[in-house]
């Protein structure tokens, strides 16, 4: 794979995007790819919008994805997918968690949450993969595993085998939450696989 793959993750501080990024990047490394992953800490994180760039391939230089160049986007929160439209192009595959987290101006009644996020995305010809990650995580009894549901969903598009991800999750997560996170990963993957066979 000479071309560098660009994975763009976005969501809200506290959703576990940084851990998800670490799992994905480690899996890429273990599969023999060069990888760079970029994120921002500090003030940018306090309940604000959070993004993470992951680039992998034979040789990766820049840690940042260029505007219009994301191959895959995983939006951990619905609205955030719209915020980062400029990173996408018409061929970008967009996995969207259907979960809504109200931004402060919406919560305080100063602004409204757009009703037509999916319509706006599909109008632009993007391939959308909606995943009810929060519901899935809740159904397996761990709402904090939303991030692993989405990692699983993303994995359906990557040239990495399931075993590689399993090994990373087993190594990275404490034993007591390992099983539930693996279950979350598999459910996420299954959800997207289901959509892919239908289309």
């Amino acid at each position: 794979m000479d071309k560098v793959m660009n994975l763009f993750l976005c969501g809200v501080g506290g959703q576990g995007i940084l851990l998800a990024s670490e799992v994905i990047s480690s899996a890429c490394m273990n599969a023999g790819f060069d990888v760079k992953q970029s994120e921002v800490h500090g003030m940018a994180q306090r309940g604000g919008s959070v993004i993470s760039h992951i680039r992998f391939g034979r040789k990766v230089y820049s840690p940042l994805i260029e505007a219009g160049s994301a191959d895959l986007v995983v939006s951990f929160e619905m609205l955030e997918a719209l915020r980062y439209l400029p990173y996408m192009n018409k061929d970008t595959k967009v996995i969207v968690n259907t979960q809504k987290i109200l931004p402060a101006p919406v919560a305080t009644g100063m602004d409204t949450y757009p009703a037509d996020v999916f319509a706006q995305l599909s109008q632009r010809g993007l391939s959308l993969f909606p995943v009810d990650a929060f519901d899935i995580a809740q159904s397996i009894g761990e709402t904090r595993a939303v991030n692993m549901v989405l990692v699983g969903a993303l994995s359906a598009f990557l040239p990495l085998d399931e075993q590689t991800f399993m090994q990373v999750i087993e190594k990275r997560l404490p034993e007591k939450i390992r099983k539930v996170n693996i279950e979350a990963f598999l459910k996420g993957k299954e959800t997207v696989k289901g959509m892919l066979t239908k289309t």
Partner: protein
Amino acid sequence: MINKKNIGEKVLLSGNEAIAQGAFEAGVSVASGYPGTPSTEILENLCTYGDIYTEWAPNEKVALEVALGASFAGARALATMKHVGLNVAADPLFTAAYTGVKGGLVIVTADDPEMHSSQNEQDNRNYAYAAKVPMLEPSDAAEAKEFLKIAYRISEEFDTPVLFRTTTRVAHVKGIITIGGTESSKATLGIEKMPEKFVMLPAHARRRRVELEKRMLRLKEFAETFPENRIEWGDKTRGFITSGVSYLYVKEAFPQASVLKLGMAYPFPDRMIRDFASEVDELFIVEELDPFIESHVKALGVECRGKELIPAMGELNSALVRQSITCEPARDLFEPVPIPMRPPNLCAGCPHRGIFHAISKLKVFVAGDIGCYTLAALKPLSSMDSCICMGASIGTAFGMEKALGKDSLGKIVAVIGDSTFMHSGITGLIDVVYNRGFSTVIILDNRTTGMTGHQPNPSTGTTLGGDKGAGIDIEALCRAIGVKHVVTLDPHEHENAVKVLKQEIERPEPSVIITRAPCALLPEMKKRKDKKIHTVIEANCTGCRSCLRIGCPAIEWVPLTPEEAKQSGYKETQKGHSHINMVMCDGCGQCAPLCKFKAIVVAGPGKGKTDG
């Protein structure tokens, strides 16, 4: 633990984690710093490497002095800080350049182009020039580890402190590094008296000044053959001189071009630059922020283009570099769509929120400081009127007071966090007492350094290594300085806080209010079982929005159409009602007293909030 890795093993580390690994491999035995994005994780990781002494110093000046002392004793020493921290540490830096070192001494400065989490965008390469010390600048995590080891060799070989500059996109970018072997200092540990070298009184300093110039000449010569200053020949129609993360953007944008990569940002290899320039048709300088390389290249009389094409503000990226150089239009992109902003906010349960709400009602000028609480400047709290640098709140409040005289009594307060007060607020308070002021200083004591990710500080007593201790007693310290009126209160108790605030700001003497309650994100706070989760009795809510004015992320507004209002049993004119998101509520109770209609009540003990 990272240090349990085997030599040759490949691991994915951030630039900061790689620097910690590099310090371990370089045989560093003393490391001191002050937390600051994007530098914090260096010491947080290095403290897990067993035998290395690591500490959070009260501020960056002390951190550098501790590292310098360790170097004088023959140890390899590290000081870490963010870019603005080096301003604080500049005093020892400039004279450490004169004394030189015994054990290797490296100072990491983590710059923040784009100001992701900073108050300014200064380019600390200028410090290398101004202080006359060499500076290394890695491009990614793998280089960060290797360059740090090189930095120690340079430090000892040339008898100089070495500056080590990262930027956010080096410090916080993960990449693959290979675990290497360890080495150690050439210096021997012990006390050695060398007054001509270490005592910088004028007669000695004048001699060291000459040594410093000689050293810089030797370093310039070294730079000519230093392998990390390297030319990658390619197509010679365009040549680029670059360093740090900008090198990666150049390689991404122009993979075929010729590149002179400067691993050493200062001093410059003049012959190498001239030779490179003479071989390429057009020479471009690509660097973030200041024209640091460009000015030097132009001063050599070498023709080049840099900041006339490439922005001198903010971060670069490969697309920006490509478009700046080729002047090709940007590719067609999806236009951004107007959607609600998602600004950072004080967390649910944050003890700072109530106190800022109380302050906002007093209509005073709030001289603020650096920390999570700077977010109180944003709507709806809108209760901070200045924020400059660590510790500046007290001095600026006092200066306004002196300019305005007695009329300013009751109109100005200084607000500062516990860690920031320890960092450099104490001296400001001494000024207030010494020079007969009447300032009111509010110390927001949330028992941690919140913004940078919960580091302990001198007032919490716990050390970086986890040793628990009593900590500096802020109240006793203020009294010892000479403040007679020191009140400690619980910021979650709104009515009392308002009462005390009103009383103290009118006092014609210095006073300190310590608002003490732990940060809601501290593990002991997150795990507590007795959280009084609140809820809104919708029938009692009149839609007055009073509770929304504290900007708690757990309180939501539910808009209603006249039809819906009627159906819900409200007056048709009621525009909506408040709602508490019980998953997000932390049970601090600050909202309840704001409701005159008793619509906000305790719902019962809640489960610990999830932290994702």
